[in-house]
């Protein structure tokens, strides 16, 4: 049973998550797998989703929250339409990633891990995309931009229209 507090669109999402959980031969040890799927469906893991997962897997909500907050891949805030990640791996760092991140923070008016008010951009830092030959690297969604400078971010952001 999905919860009854949500609208139709959410209902579908909960139904999808429920179907996934039911399809698992066992839920023992599968919390992280379920959370991956839940984040895939909802885009993020708000409190309600965590409560729902806890109920379905018959474990305490505190355990779910403990896991969600432990891993950097899981997020409790919705991402923007354009999810910008700045690679802060060492190779990018020594080639000036910090300045790129700083410039993006100023330009968008948000800190890392935040989303702009209009929901258009969110900003994150991540560890090593593995495109070190192109350092410093910025990703928007799945697209990788290489050899980014604080000056070139305007061009990149302009593509997001």
């Amino acid at each position: 049973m999905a919860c009854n507090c949500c609208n139709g669109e959410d209902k579908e999402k909960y139904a999808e998550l429920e179907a996934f959980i039911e399809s698992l031969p066992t839920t023992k040890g599968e919390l992280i797998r379920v959370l991956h799927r839940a984040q895939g469906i909802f885009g993020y893991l708000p409190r309600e989703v965590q409560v729902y997962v806890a109920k379905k897997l018959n474990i305490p909500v505190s355990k779910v929250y403990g896991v969600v907050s432990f891993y950097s891949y899981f997020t409790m805030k919705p991402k923007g339409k354009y999810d910008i990640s700045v690679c802060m791996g060492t190779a990018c760092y020594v080639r000036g990633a910090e300045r790129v991140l700083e410039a993006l923070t100023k330009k968008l008016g948000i800190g890392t891990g935040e989303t702009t008010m209009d929901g258009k951009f969110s900003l994150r830092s991540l560890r090593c995309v593995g495109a070190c030959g192109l350092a410093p690297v910025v990703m928007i969604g799945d697209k990788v931009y290489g050899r980014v400078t604080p000056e070139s971010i305007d061009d990149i952001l302009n593509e997001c229209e």
Partner: protein
Amino acid sequence: MADTKMHVLVCGGTGCLSSNSSDIVDNLIAEIKAAGMEDEVKVLKTGCFGFCEKGPIVKILPDNTFYTQVKPEDAKEIVAEHIVKGRKVERLLYMDPEKEQHISDAKHMDFYKKQMRVALRNCGFIDPDNIEEYIGRDGYQALAKCLTEFTPEQVIEEVKKSGLRGRGGAGFPTGLKWQLARANDADQKYVVCNADEGDPGAFMDRSILEGDPHSIVEAMAICGYAIGASQGRVYIRAEYPLAIKRLENAISSAREYGLLGDNILGSDFSFDIEITFGAGAFVCGEETALLRSMEGNRGEPTTKPPFPAEHGYWNKPTNVNNVETFANVPVIFLKGADWFNKIGTEKSKGTKVFALAGKINNVGLIEVPMGTTLREVIYDIGGGIKNGKKFKAVQTGGPSGGCLTEKDLDTPIDFDNLVARGSMMGSGGMIVMDEDDCMPSVARFYLEFTEEESCGKCTPCRIGTKRLSELLKDITQGKGTEEHVKELKRISQVIKDTALCGLGQTAPNPVLSTLAAFEDEYMAHVKEGRCPAGKCTALLKFFIEADKCKGCTLCARNCPVGAISGEVRKPHAIDQEKCIKCGACMDRCKFGAIVKH
């Protein structure tokens, strides 16, 4: 396939894909079709060639031509000239920077000359999504050999004889690890492949999984046979979508071909592999934390003993090896333990893959025999420091490692030599730094990383890394004192002695190793309020040298905070109160009149 006259290999590694190598493949196929040669020429998307700096790479065989920095629009010329007419496209060939000559055969490039590709043997050579390509390169022959010619004990003996040590960090002997897991009786045992590459700046494991996933599948099956396990798990970062896809594909075709599943090759041995996703936590590279994470928990390490070989995944005997370690295993059985044993140094056998990055001309993924010196790696293979700057240090071992300097350049690289010099092999990240890199800032970068990644279970690591990172922040912001430096040393020692797991115990390494080699640089920060590398903006001041300033006003117009004033055609000046030290004026000045110190 007798009609195929030519193979065109296009790099499909993450770096080259980021530079649109998929479009190159599409365009090549379209152009070849337009030329009516689709039956004669085969286009393949392979794993990483390693020479990421010059990517995207396109290699044409059999004439062994290596094209660099290819753009999708170059496909037309490659097909029209090279493939149809047999004329090499000169402008896309690698240019030897010293001889200023084009080189078309990769073997003659300095980047490849000293390399020896064992773990990366198939990367950039086969189509990783086609199991038959792997089989054509003797794939699964090692497994077949083990199942038909060796007892499990003999398999372990062979691995021990090869001298293979774990490539994930500390270098524990692989054969011994297998033996410990075999010695424990249980109804179920597990083989786990650690593909949670957490070192920011190392990407060899991902490249192997992307370029040669079957080698891992085969090696895990061999390990399963050796220790008596029928279940394998690959714990992989969810941030590696391409590697996951290729691995999933490899596992399912191995099942289809009967190379995974029940009674493999008609033997009594059954083995299968599942994938478990990590979710981004550096500490999960530590094997006990990894196992907790695989069980769906927070990835917090536990004390050893008991070792995973006794109580591992769901408390069953478990053997954990990392990707690169596994990638070496089939070769040991194909070429023999003695062959493997001859490569490398006395206590470190075989080769090691390094992700060479930072301020170096040839960024890329390289594989060299153990015992190669840092100088050979940085200058011969890496092509030296970018922009002719001066070499300052090389960081190995990631956040758990340390910095090596000029005096260590001729040290043969192996597990023990790196530890003796205050660093470690780690997974093989190798970040080169030049004179513009400030060492306290580098230490701060790493400590911010470990502070964020500390799981919080034990106090020395949770609080200690936070304190270290605070002290380093003070120092790089000009608020440090000599007391700060003393405190850094003291806390580092405490963490080293008392932290629970490998991550904690090695977390102070970046501080200790930079302090050992660059204490004067720390002192310049705290005593003179000066950053010798000119990196710490809080300690910098920008000045206009009056005799060089022509009064063109360009700097004043570009200063974002209006800190520069002066009359036209007369020397300008910077108001230090207003200056935010962004450096915009210095970048713009055409006369070199602006200096920072």
